[in-house]
């Protein structure tokens, strides 16, 4: 993106003009009470890393249990609590917030040429809400846990489940308001704080996907919040809104829950689209192919995602006609998703591709997302879903999207912007190794689960018939590799903070306003407000060494 300094720029009103946001105060207070979006992003990064490893540890124990057919842990009760813990932590405290609150929080103002988000104090409040919700939920999970699964289906959760259902629900309720605050802040910021000349069609796709994601956050999360309140009331007072024994309707809960939780899947994957759309042009040295199509694909995925929730309930007793309608609508999501994949491939076509670590993660994303998306069509089909629902096929499908694709994108973005965020280069060779191991480990973990599900192994059981053992052992072996791949970056990224090479302002020779300011950026982001005159991906024609 070409930019020049605005000649009528106002003087820097706050903060220091030398050094960076990292050197602007060293006390604990200067971090915990900072309203700087970059510092808050770092607070969030530490928090979600913590939650990621807790949720990961629960997953490791789940896989450990499934090594032998009769269950290694020996307790169905413990197993149920473990997968609930895994789901609750991963969905609400890692996957939904991960990219927006860290990379989004850090990059949105930089990419817009702004000095901060529109509401910096609200941003800080959202971190405190997130932590408060996280602490309450962790407390519930570690003081005995609960065995409802992350979906909290009624009347299981309200009448029969043992454990701290209400406390977990309160934690999720609180963290929901953190999501709402973040989404609201992003939407208003993107509308109001774009640099002069930065028109909507000059916005990077990352910004567009953050915008689409934020719309989902602010519109879907309040519905989850009120649903959880109703659930907690029903459990506390034994009066039924969802309990059929006293005039309630359990399907009502499923409708409301999936009205949030299906868009939530897109909250997880939309940021991935954005990250990958930044990385691929930068490492193919080409303009993003079909920019407007990619942009509107994000927006239409966000819109359609509100109308597909019923596909979680094909076998729950909904009418055939509503199921048919939801099936057709679910197929519709495939259209913008495919548009994106083809546009990324179009960008790669005849590009001058270099396989740096961010690019490896991005390419992994494209592959895993394609597998996850295509298997989504299987379970969107009514007849196939009757066979596949509640089996490991579904587990494998959504893990390909939410873990394979989304976590790859998160790591891709983290490596891509790491030099900007920290001012240090990460060790390239280690990063490439980690990207490769992650891809292999992920596929080894989850591909066998497609086969298991197809053969009929149901999810959420702690034991299984002996003929499924080989595939389960393969899956658990893959999980070990995956765990190593997740621990590696933790090691070398922390190492790079101390010993990494100093990063230049633009190590990837990438376009985008975030690369126009020093690494790490000063507290005020831009000493002079940039003026934008061109589109987001104006890469010069590659300089080839031969013909």
């Amino acid at each position, binding site marked *: 993106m070409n930019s020049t300094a*605005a000649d*009528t*720029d*106002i003087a*820097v*009103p*706050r*903060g220091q003009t030398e050094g960076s946001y990292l050197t602007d105060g060293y006390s604990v207070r200067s971090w915990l009470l900072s309203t700087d979006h970059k510092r808050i992003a770092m607070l969030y990064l530490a928090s979600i890393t913590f939650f990621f490893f807790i949720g990961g540890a629960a997953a490791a124990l789940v896989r450990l249990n499934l090594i032998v057919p009769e269950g290694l842990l020996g307790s169905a009760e413990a197993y149920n609590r473990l997968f609930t813990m895994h789901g609750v932590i991963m969905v609400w405290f890692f996957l939904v917030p991960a990219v927006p609150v860290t990379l989004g929080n850090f990059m949105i*103002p930089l990419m817009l040429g*702004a*000095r*901060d*988000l*529109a*509401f*910096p104090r*609200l941003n800080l409040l959202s971190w405190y809400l997130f932590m408060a919700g996280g602490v309450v939920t962790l407390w519930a999970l570690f003081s005995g846990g609960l065995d409802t699964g992350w979906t909290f289906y009624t009347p299981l959760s309200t009448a029969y489940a043992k454990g701290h259902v209400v406390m977990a629900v309160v934690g999720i309720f609180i963290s929901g308001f953190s999501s*709402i605050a973040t989404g*609201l*802040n992003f*939407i*208003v910021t993107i*509308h*109001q*704080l774009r640099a*002069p000349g930065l028109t909507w069609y000059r916005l990077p796709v990352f910004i567009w996907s953050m915008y689409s994601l934020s719309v989902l956050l*602010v*519109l*879907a*999360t*309040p*519905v989850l*919040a*009120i*649903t959880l*309140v*109703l659930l907690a*009331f029903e459990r506390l*007072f*034994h*009066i*039924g*809104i969802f309990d059929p024994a*006293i*005039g*309630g*309707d359990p399907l*009502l809960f499923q409708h*409301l829950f999936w009205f949030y939780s299906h868009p939530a899947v897109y909250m997880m994957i939309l940021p991935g689209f954005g990250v990958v759309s930044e990385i691929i042009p930068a490492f193919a040295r080409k303009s993003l192919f079909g920019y407007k199509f990619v942009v509107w694909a994000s927006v239409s995925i966000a819109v359609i995602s509100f109308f597909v929730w019923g596909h979680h309930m094909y076998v729950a007793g909904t009418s055939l006609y509503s199921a048919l309608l939801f099936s057709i609508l679910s197929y519709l999501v495939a259209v913008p998703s495919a548009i994106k994949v083809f546009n990324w491939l179009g960008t790669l076509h005849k590009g001058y591709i270099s396989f740096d670590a961010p690019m490896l993660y991005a390419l992994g994303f494209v592959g895993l997302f394609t597998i996850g998306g295509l298997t989504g069509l299987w379970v969107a089909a009514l007849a196939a879903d009757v066979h596949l629902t509640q089996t490991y096929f579904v587990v494998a499908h959504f893990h390909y999207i939410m873990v394979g694709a989304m976590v790859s994108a998160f790591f891709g973005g983290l490596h891509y912007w790491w030099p900007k965020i920290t001012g240090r280069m990460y060790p390239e060779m280690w990063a490439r190794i980690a990207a490769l191991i992650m891809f292999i480990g992920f596929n080894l973990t989850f591909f066998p689960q497609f086969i298991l599900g197809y053969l009929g192994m149901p999810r959420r059981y702690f034991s299984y018939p002996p003929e499924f053992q080989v595939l389960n052992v393969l899956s658990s072996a893959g999980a070990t590799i995956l765990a190593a791949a997740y621990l590696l970056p933790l090691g070398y990224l922390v190492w790079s903070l101390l010993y990494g090479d100093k990063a230049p302002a633009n190590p990837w020779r990438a376009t985008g306003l975030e690369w126009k300011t020093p690494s790490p950026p000063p507290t*005020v982001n831009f000493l002079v*407000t940039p003026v934008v005159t061109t589109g987001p991906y104006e890469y010069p024609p590659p300089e080839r060494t031969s013909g």
Partner: protein
Amino acid sequence: MTAGSGLPHEFQYADASHQANTAIAGMWLFLATEVLLFGGLILCWIYSRHWNPVGFDAGARQTALWIGTLNTALLITSSFLYALGVAFMRVGNARALIHCLVLTLMLALAFLVLKFGLEYRDDFARHLFPTATRFALTGAEAAGGRLFFIFYFLGTGLHGIHMLVGMGLLVWIIRRARRGEFSPQYYTPVEVVGLYWSFVDLVWLTLYPLIYLVGRG
């Protein structure tokens, strides 16, 4: 960039009016999330009524119509007074703004006293709380009646919490106005809180027929 009015503003904005527009946009978006929050509740309410018409009608007949109606009048008047206050501030009459807001606050207080002091106490006394062992409604009306009163207490409780927050904001605005912080050029907080207060009013206008009118006929 516009020259601006020279008023102070936060460092991420071009000028004070840019900041004011952003604040108002933020409040509108927040209210949209509130619509979805109450919307979920009201959806469940109407859905449950559809399947339990007898119990819901019986529940509605137990409510105190005069309190609900009086409270509706109080809230509408309070919103009118607030809007009047904003109009006074626009022409620079901070004193009239303060008078209007104090009256708004008093009407809100009257609402809460009627609602929670009188009506709730009466409901408890007549065994209308849904978990009451000797619940007032019996037979075919019992299950639906209990459901009705779950929604009644949840809806009015949630609305009451919003009123308390709003009253806190009113006190904050009154204090700032007394310190002379507002002028015809700058009264964004007054406008933003006004949007919120009107929304609280609007929620009540949805709850009022659901509680007191539907099924009474």
